[in-house]
């Protein structure tokens, strides 16, 4: 039996539907916006204007019980001496599927959950796992729980 999307999925949808750069940010950062327009014209990625990545937001909100995920995520994070930030963890979870996952995050959060579940299971099959306090966990779920902790 598959569980209906819970609070986590709803939050993920809200995150995904939020504009990457809010109106106030754009208005308040006219210079940057101008630079962004130039960058867009030149085909350069919009790092300065990207704001919260909708995928990052969706992944950070993946777990409905954020406190539970955060507790485990903090353990995972403690294993990382370099302490990478949310963007790096998002990239780790998304791998080469960022576009696909971002689209799912915006269009179909339950499908995003299913895709991440499948990816996590494939991690186990392929040996992409890490051991946290003795527990063998998939790279994907570790990343998701860290993102919850970083939120």
């Amino acid at each position, binding site marked *: 039996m598959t569980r209906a999307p819970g609070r986590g999925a709803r939050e993920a949808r809200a995150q995904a539907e939020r504009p990457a750069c809010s109106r106030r940010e754009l208005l308040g950062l006219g210079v940057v916006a101008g630079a962004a327009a130039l960058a867009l014209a030149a085909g350069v990625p919009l790092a300065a204007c990207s704001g919260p990545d909708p995928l990052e937001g969706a992944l950070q909100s993946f777990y409905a019980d954020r406190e539970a995920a955060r507790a485990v995520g903090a353990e995972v994070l403690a294993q990382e001496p370099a302490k990478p930030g949310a963007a790096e963890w998002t990239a780790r979870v998304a791998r080469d599927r960022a576009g696909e996952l971002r689209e799912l995050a915006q269009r179909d959060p339950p499908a995003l959950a299913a895709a991440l579940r499948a990816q996590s299971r494939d991690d186990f099959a392929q040996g992409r*796992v890490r051991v946290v306090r003795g527990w063998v966990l998939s790279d994907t779920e570790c990343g998701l729980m860290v993102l919850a902790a970083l939120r």
Partner: protein
Amino acid sequence: MLSDARRLPAGRDLEADVCIVGAGAAGIALALELAGSPLRVVLLESGGFERDDATDDLARGRIQGRHHPPLEEVRARGFGGTTSAWDGRLRPLDPIDFEAREWIPHSGWPITARDLEPFVARAARRFGLAEPVPAPGPEAPPALPLDAQAFVSPELWIAPVRFGERYRADVTGARNVDALLHASAVELVANEAGSALVGVRVATLAGGGFAVRARAVVLAAGGIETPRLLLASNRVQTAGLGNGADLVGRYFMEHPQLVAGALLPASAELPLGRYRPRANAGAESMALLTPSAALLRRERVQSFAAVLAGEAALPDLERALATSVHELEAAPGAPSTRALFLLNSCEQAPNPASRVRLAEERDALGLPRVQLEWRLSPSDLHSLRRGHDLLARELGRAGAGRLQLMLGPGDMDWPADLVGGGHHMGTTRMHEDPRRGVVDASCRVHGVANLWVAGSAVFATSGSADPTLAIVALAIRLADQLKRELAP
């Protein structure tokens, strides 16, 4: 018929067709099969119906190498042997256990699981199990949603039949069987060439002694006392009887037992009922988790068998993990509130350095005491870790749950308090080549025409199954052979 050997007149020798040394599961099963036959049987038992300290002390020995409980605590000298103090776990050896596996040195029996199968069915009846042992068998698919090509869930039967109590009347009532209590075999007396036995010298703690002259002698004294008696019987062959290739006492194997993992189910509703003891076909059974033969071949590892042996409420972190796993897996019902421990019984690879030998000290009857050196091999630990790593991955792949490993990558050795299952195997291993085994495929000692071994001492490999069912099956098989060979 039953006698107390302490009350027999000293020096009065007995005659028999078959002399069985040891009234444990193997010895009693053998005697039961021979009961009612034309053969005269003497069954020697070192202890009585009740355990006593003086008799237990005869089993005392030195422990070297890996920790092992005191021998007098893990062997029960008395009518019924160690079945008087066991938990009744029964499972046939797996077919792969009999195979020569190139990644396990010294593996391979000269018989197959199929050869033993009819005797396993007969042995099962001695434990009150249906004949044959009911399915599911060794390749039973797991109840958990795991890949059956990787992990399987054969049934473990639980029938703690106390042979001493259950079969006392049958043995003592058999007109052709003389059961002698408090009768300790202290020497196997060979002919001048050492090619056959003429009898068994017996002593009692009361000071008496006598000999049993028999056409056939069967050692059914367990994996420690059987090699002890062979090694101590060195009057003709100075290295001990049957020890021309220096194999008697070597290849001592146990089943290392430990909690090696904890299973966190993805849901409180995960179907785990088969893994719990339950009434089944008139007996009690539970499913195990064990690697499939295909996985063992692919990974070139030894086996283990895990029972879900207990459960614990979850600490905070694990409770949080249970919630997150349940959510990620979109599992039904509520998150699990408990973790289940995997109690493992591990296959130990045959290791010639793991051995039973004689110590300098002697017991009250003048027999050299045993020195046990239980030694594990790197492949034993590797197999356990690799097997659990794969189980963890399979549980995750199937979305069934997560596994916590008790042995981490940095743990280079077994826990110091590791125990064995009290399963003493391999010390008179079976092989058709006398340079590689002590007994042949019929369990006859190479080079000694009328001497056989019954019991787990003949196991060439240990598998992960509890040995008692195979011990009794081999004893029944031997009884059939003796009836054929010794028929008037």
